[in-house]
């Protein structure tokens, strides 16, 4: 990990002055909008047995990298919605890849065999890759699952965040942040909402 990446993750208990009060904060800081796609050429093991890179998954219109988990309830809530979005937007030129950065040594159900089972049982038709050492998660500043990083074809980040505003109930969705960002990316218009917050499971770093 580079010094900058280390700073980004704020691995130490850092202090910042906010409105005259001392706030001791330790939070992950994801890539800023406009940042370059990290580790574009790093080879990662795909659950289907092949190997791939982010660069290879990049589509004609962009790339969606989504940090994922075999066990996280929020991932389970979004599983069908992400599969539907992938089917729809891969056809429109956006490549999809889901990334498991969790340490299976500490959390056995995050292992490769279970990833393969998920691909089979859930019908993922996009790569589900292992992030050995959580290197991609660290480089992206990812901290939770699911967490989306959407890049344009120049490898610049255009959106980071969540799928929509209603994880527990698809019928309660009022804002489809991810879909809107992809539509705007494809249309070549401004991404109106570039970052969103959402609850998720912590990535269990190696």
């Amino acid at each position, binding site marked *: 990990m580079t010094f900058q990446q280390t700073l980004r993750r704020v691995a130490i208990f850092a202090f910042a002055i906010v409105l*005259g009060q*001392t*706030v001791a904060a*330790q*939070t*992950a800081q994801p890539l800023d909008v406009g940042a370059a796609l990290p580790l574009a050429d790093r080879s990662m093991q795909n659950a289907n047995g092949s190997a791939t890179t982010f660069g290879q998954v990049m589509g004609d219109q962009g790339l969606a990298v989504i940090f994922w988990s075999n066990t996280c309830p929020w991932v389970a809530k979004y599983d069908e919605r992400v599969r539907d979005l992938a089917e729809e937007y891969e056809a429109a030129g956006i490549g999809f890849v889901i990334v498991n950065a969790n340490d299976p040594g500490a959390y056995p159900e995050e292992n490769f065999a279970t990833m393969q089972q998920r691909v089979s049982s859930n019908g993922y038709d996009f790569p589900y890759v292992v992030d050995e050492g959580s290197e991609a998660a660290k480089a992206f500043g990812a901290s939770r699952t699911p967490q989306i990083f959407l890049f344009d074809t120049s490898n610049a980040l255009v959106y980071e965040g969540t799928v929509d505003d209603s994880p527990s109930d698809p019928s309660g969705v009022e804002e489809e942040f991810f879909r809107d960002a992809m539509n705007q990316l494809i249309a070549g218009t401004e991404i109106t909402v570039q970052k969103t917050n959402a609850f998720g499971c*912590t990535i269990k770093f190696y």
Partner: protein
Amino acid sequence: MNRFSTSPRLLLIGMLALAACTGQEPVGDLVIEPVSAEELMDEVRAIDSDIVVVNFWASWCLPCRAEFPEFIRFSEEADPGEAQVRFVSIDFEEDLPHAAEFLREHGISGTTFVKDGKDGPFISAIYSEWSGAIPATALYDRDGDLVGFWEGIVTYDQLAERVRTVRQSTESVSTNSTSL
């Protein structure tokens, strides 16, 4: 008021019934009260303590479950005038019975909280730099101002040290402000 408004009562009844069936004694009344970020801050400001520790957790979150006893130990050992702990569950509505069971197993009674409303606005209202990952913990001073925040698991010793450090710094700020 909110979509979980009837859940606490049902939850309490269900827990008492469970205790009766298993021969266990109920551990007092337990109510899981839905709170918005604004309502949570009202609760925090009403607490008479130098530092209020708010831990955001969920019943299925393994790191949250792992650190939970550390917070209980801290709560039991801290001087209530110096630090108090509150828990806010992020469980989905269907998981609240699991949350209640976990709380009961750890001897929690009385009122505890579950997040209410949309995630994004709640997260931003608590702390704009919070990614949304849990477990997460916020520290508030006596005025309800946020003075500490972190994502991830902590031990008792780490928690005690962070509270001590922040408490000292807020005392310093208070002293400096008084002298100006």
